[in-house]
């Protein structure tokens, strides 16, 4: 019995002694004080020194992609460290090309914050945030689509995004869901609008869309994250073809609103497809855009309109319009947004017509 007590005491004692030593070392030796991290030469963060850059940024809500969790094996967490990073470590060199070394690219999980740093990260990562929003207005655009306007509360800087990007909207738990749920929605607003506008279509048995259509009230508070996505307006002097169906109009409208604001005079054509005349929305705004942007044409097309109706516009699907109106080998920038089947058939068709694939941007809603 005494032997057992002695063993336990001695072994615990050794453990405790080492723990105390390490704790003291951590307190006094590894204390680097407060360090400043300057990001993209515009934002400064104050962090406690001593941890890897990856984790310091994470604590401040900036999420650099990392798959291995900071072990230095996945090489996803590359950032540019312009100043204060010290020499490149042998644990990093296997993952960095000569070109990256030249540009001061480092693995953020291996660079420790020991002094003030100046770093550069892709703007998208820098901008993604969580925002508290208040529902400002809900309006019926069609029987199945609601326009929801959100106002950002409790965030000084507001959201910075490119026209056409999307956000993730989170809704609280309600009777159809087992917990908070979030879905991606493209913004039809542009940054200058201050408020965020979304078009939310009713999806059969869709948890989030059902909530928005049946339960969401004006004044309700929600959480959203963003901006995300690489579907946004690109500068060039080529003509533009815009293709949308259903709520896919949202990012396309954002692009058009941006063109109006910037007075961009590129020739632009919008093919917008729905079933019937009742499913068309934002028609007034699109028609007035035609006047404000003289080089813009709005072409709605209906696929389920009876032969004897008074509809004078185009009939059929958006793909029929592409088939008929787009010339082989045309030099176009194409933006497509809508359901996956529509996007895929448009892509196939455009490829067949010899449109350069790198000039086609698309966003599939699924």
């Amino acid at each position, binding site marked *: 019995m005494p032997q057992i007590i*002695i*063993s336990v005491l*001695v072994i615990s004692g050794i*453990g405790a002694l*080492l723990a105390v*030593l390490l704790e003291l*070392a951590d307190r006094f030796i*590894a204390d680097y004080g407060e360090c400043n991290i300057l990001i993209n030469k515009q934002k400064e963060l104050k962090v406690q020194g001593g941890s890897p850059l990856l984790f310091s940024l994470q604590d401040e809500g900036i999420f650099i992609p990392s798959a291995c969790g900071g072990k230095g094996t996945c090489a996803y967490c590359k950032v540019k460290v312009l100043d204060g990073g010290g020499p490149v470590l042998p*644990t990093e*060199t296997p993952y960095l090309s000569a070109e990256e070394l030249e540009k001061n690219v480092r693995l953020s999980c291996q660079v420790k914050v020991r002094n003030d740093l100046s770093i550069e990260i892709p703007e998208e990562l820098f901008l993604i945030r969580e925002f508290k929003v208040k529902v400002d207005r809900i309006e019926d655009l069609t029987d199945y689509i609601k326009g929801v306007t959100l106002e950002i509360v409790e965030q000084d800087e507001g959201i910075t995004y490119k026209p056409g990007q999307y956000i993730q909207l989170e809704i609280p738990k309600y009777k159809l869901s087992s917990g908070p749920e979030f879905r991606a929605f493209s913004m039809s607003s542009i940054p200058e609008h201050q408020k965020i506008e979304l078009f939310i279509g009713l999806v059969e048995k869709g948890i989030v869309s059902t909530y928005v259509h049946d339960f969401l009230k004006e004044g309700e508070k929600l959480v959203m994250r963003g901006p995300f996505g690489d579907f946004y307006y690109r500068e060039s002097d080529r003509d533009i073809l815009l293709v949308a169906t259903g709520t896919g109009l949202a990012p396309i409208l954002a692009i058009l609103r941006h063109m109006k604001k910037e007075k961009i005079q590129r020739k632009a054509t919008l093919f917008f497809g729905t079933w019937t005349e009742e499913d068309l929305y934002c028609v007034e705004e699109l028609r007035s855009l035609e006047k404000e942007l003289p080089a813009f044409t709005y072409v709605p097309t209906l696929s389920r309109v009876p032969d004897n109706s008074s509809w004078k516009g185009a009939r059929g699907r958006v793909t029929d319009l592409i088939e008929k109106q787009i010339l082989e080998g045309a030099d176009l920038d194409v933006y497509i947004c809508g359901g996956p089947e529509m996007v895929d058939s448009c892509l196939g068709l455009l490829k067949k017509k010899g449109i350069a694939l790198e000039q086609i941007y698309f966003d599939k809603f699924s």
Partner: protein
Amino acid sequence: MDPINPLTLFFAAIFTNNILLTNFLGLCPFLSMSGQKKSAFGMGAAVVFVMASTTALNNLVHYKILVPLGLEHFRYIVFIVVIAAFVQLVEMTVERFFPSLYFSLGIFLPLITVNCAIFGASLFMVIRKYDFVQSLAYGAGSGIGWMLAIISISAIREKLQKTAKLPRGLEGPAITLIITGLLALAFLAFSGMIRVQ
């Protein structure tokens, strides 16, 4: 048997009883860090330092604490904890006060906390009943032996990368293991020259 002279033991640990090439301990960092001579040197130097200090330290812990209290059977857990804590302390100190040394050697320290060669050296020290000075000599010798092996292999690997056209299946760890085997055979020529226990 007379106790072995520490100096003899030191050289024996480097050549005739090379811990990597005769006991095949510490293969994991050996395979991963032997691609470049520069990193092989850093890793090797870190192993020399840690192995020499922890073998000596564990010798003290074993004969001053564990043996008098009859707790030798706890040596596994105690050695591991001592090694881990020691390496961490050294890493913190070097990182804070000797930044240039940290960038060349220090970053390898965490990698060898769990290196079986380090732990193996401490266990051999107990099995072979070395005293403090012998332990220090044995630890340092084993570390230098390990360093010698990884530097030789990295030199061969660097040369291979430039000149040899290897079949794909043999690239990387495969050819490294084969070369290590050949090198171990060469070191076998030293065996029997000195008896270490």
